């Protein structure tokens, strides 16, 4: 950690501790996202800071016994640092972009709170918005209905245009959370029809019909921390060798690996749903030069033959 990072933190820590008398070491460490040990090191620096003159009455006072014995911080004699430093442009922009993301994603009530908070922050920093965020957040009515169902803890019936399977379904689900991943909003919900956790992209939900049925406890929905599909134990690796015309998938889908292959690329993806892979191969058509394992292409080949039969071709 650099001295600059420490000074920046100290300049916020002094007013914070005056706003929060008798603060708990762990809580403060969490607010500033440092270890309790680092926080103690910070306090030891502040112990030597104060007004020019250097007499004991000029220095910031910290009750070090209370810190060590009780884990409590009592700081005084620091009126000269009563308020935090202004936001840096970096901090203001990072916060403003985060708020803009919520503006794209939240329900009506959240968005109105975000908009007014954003206006106040921007009034203080006086910056032009130089960073924009557009999230695939779905229709307002869908977001509002889901927020309402989440707050009330009731099941909903979705009208869902599933893209990977290419059909409209009407699942009854217990909503658990709305989350953004890779730029799109998703609903994580327990599907009553499937008896399992499912993820629904918000912009593909056409309608949400609330029910009076309270949601049951299904535990936590699976996390996405490991990345796309990593939580699906049934996912298999498939490697596609693609002509240049198929290179777009490297920017479109999360891939395990990509390497150049001739003019094109060789891309390895994790496939959890064979129907999704069938559609991808049908989509790519002549851009697919090779599929490994080869049997992964069998379903797409059969589907193409069935389609050709529909054309009498």
């Amino acid at each position, binding site marked *: 950690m*650099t*001295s*600059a990072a420490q*000074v920046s933190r100290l*300049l916020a820590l002094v007013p*914070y501790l005056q*706003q929060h008398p008798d603060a708990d070491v762990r809580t403060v460490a969490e*607010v*500033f996202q440092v270890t309790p040990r680092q926080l103690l090191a910070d306090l030891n*620096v502040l112990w030597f800071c104060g*007004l*020019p003159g250097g007499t004991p009455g000029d220095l910031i006072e910290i009750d070090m016994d209370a810190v060590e014995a009780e884990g409590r911080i009592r700081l005084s004699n620091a009126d000269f640092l009563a*308020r935090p*430093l202004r*936001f*840096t*442009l*970096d*901090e203001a922009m*990072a916060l403003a972009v*985060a*708020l803009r*993301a919520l503006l794209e*994603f939240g329900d009506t009530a*959240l968005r109105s*709170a*975000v908009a007014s908070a954003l206006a106040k922050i921007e009034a*203080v920093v006086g910056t*032009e918005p*130089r*960073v*924009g965020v*557009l999230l695939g957040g779905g229709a307002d009515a869908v977001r509002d209905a889901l927020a309402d169902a*989440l707050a009330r803890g009731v099941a909903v019936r979705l009208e869902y*245009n*599933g*893209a990977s399977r*290419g*059909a409209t379904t009407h699942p009854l689900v217990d909503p658990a*959370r709305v989350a*953004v991943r*890779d730029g799109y909003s998703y609903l994580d919900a327990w599907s009553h029809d499937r008896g399992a956790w499912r993820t629904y992209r918000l912009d*593909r939900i056409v309608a949400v019909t609330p029910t009076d049925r309270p949601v049951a406890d299904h535990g936590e929905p699976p996390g996405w921390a490991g990345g796309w599909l990593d939580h699906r134990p049934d996912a298999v690796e498939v490697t596609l060798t693609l002509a240049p*015309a198929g290179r777009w998938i490297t*920017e*479109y889908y999360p891939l395990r690996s990509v390497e150049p292959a001739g003019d094109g690329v060789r891309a390895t993806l994790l496939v959890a749903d064979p129907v999704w892979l069938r559609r991808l191969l*049908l*989509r790519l*058509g*002549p*851009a697919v030069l090779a*599929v490994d394992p080869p049997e992964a*292409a069998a379903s797409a*080949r059969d589907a*193409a033959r069935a389609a*050709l*039969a*529909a*054309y009498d*071709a």
Partner: protein
Amino acid sequence: MSARKSERIMNLTICLLMARRFVEREQIRQLVEGYHGLSDAAFERTFERDKEELRTLGVPIETGSNSALFPDEVGYRIRRTDFELPPLEFDAAETAALGLASTVWEQARLADATVRAVAKLRAAGVEPDASRAAALEASVGAAEPAFEPLWQALLARTRVRFTYHGVVRVVEPWTLAYRRGAWYLVAFDTTRGERRLFKVTRISDAPAPVGRPGAYEIPALDLAESLAALEPAPATAEALLAIADAAAPDLRRRATPAAAAAAHTPAGGAPPGYGLYRWPYAEDRDAAGELAAHGADVVVLAPPALRDAVIAHLRAVAEGAAGAAPERPEGQR
């Protein structure tokens, strides 16, 4: 990290903040204990570095003279009104929103910057509350290696040089935009003398600053208009499709049902269990691939050229052979 250095910079800050007049170097050297015992040269060096460090933290140090008669006697001070976060008041809903905002960034350095901003708000007595985050998880990532240098350049208004599609360009960054999980840069390309849109992931080297900060002005921009090139191309033709019932909702959404009488085409009418739709599409995009993805659920009745393209596309899949290259899909470039 040096505790002594942090201590010295803190004391320098407090010293300049409390001063009613400009404080001259020699006074600073005496007042701030951390400068005691340094040679003249070492003091000059250390003091210059400390000032620079405070400036990067956003601490505004003003330089001036107390004397109109001797304006060369330069001193320093920090104006409290420039230093302190102005009073901010948020209601409960706004503080909840701020708490949620503090969890949005996935990119580590900007996540840190947001944490610092929120810690400042807490230090000013605002209490953001992230408890609502349990059911709402917004996240914005920035995994593109070129993102960070572009962000810095944009904030500082510094021109940057990078390689894009194998061509070196020097640009003035105007706006960064996050759309569908990817970052785009709207910038003025000084080589071509025009505004350009760059996909950040396609920048193949680390953008390097060119010249000094504040080198250009950013014009007012309409973000949606700047990104219009990323939207699907406008339709230039209309196809007549037979779509199996309840299949291909993504196609039906943009289509209009067609009367059965419309189906007198050389290709015949809709098979049983299929509905007829008029589907607008852009001819320069990969419409054939988009339609072929639906397999037997979608049959093109007209125009014949599109019908033939889909049949050729499907044959390539059925025979597992390479063929003619399709165009890029909609929304890609």
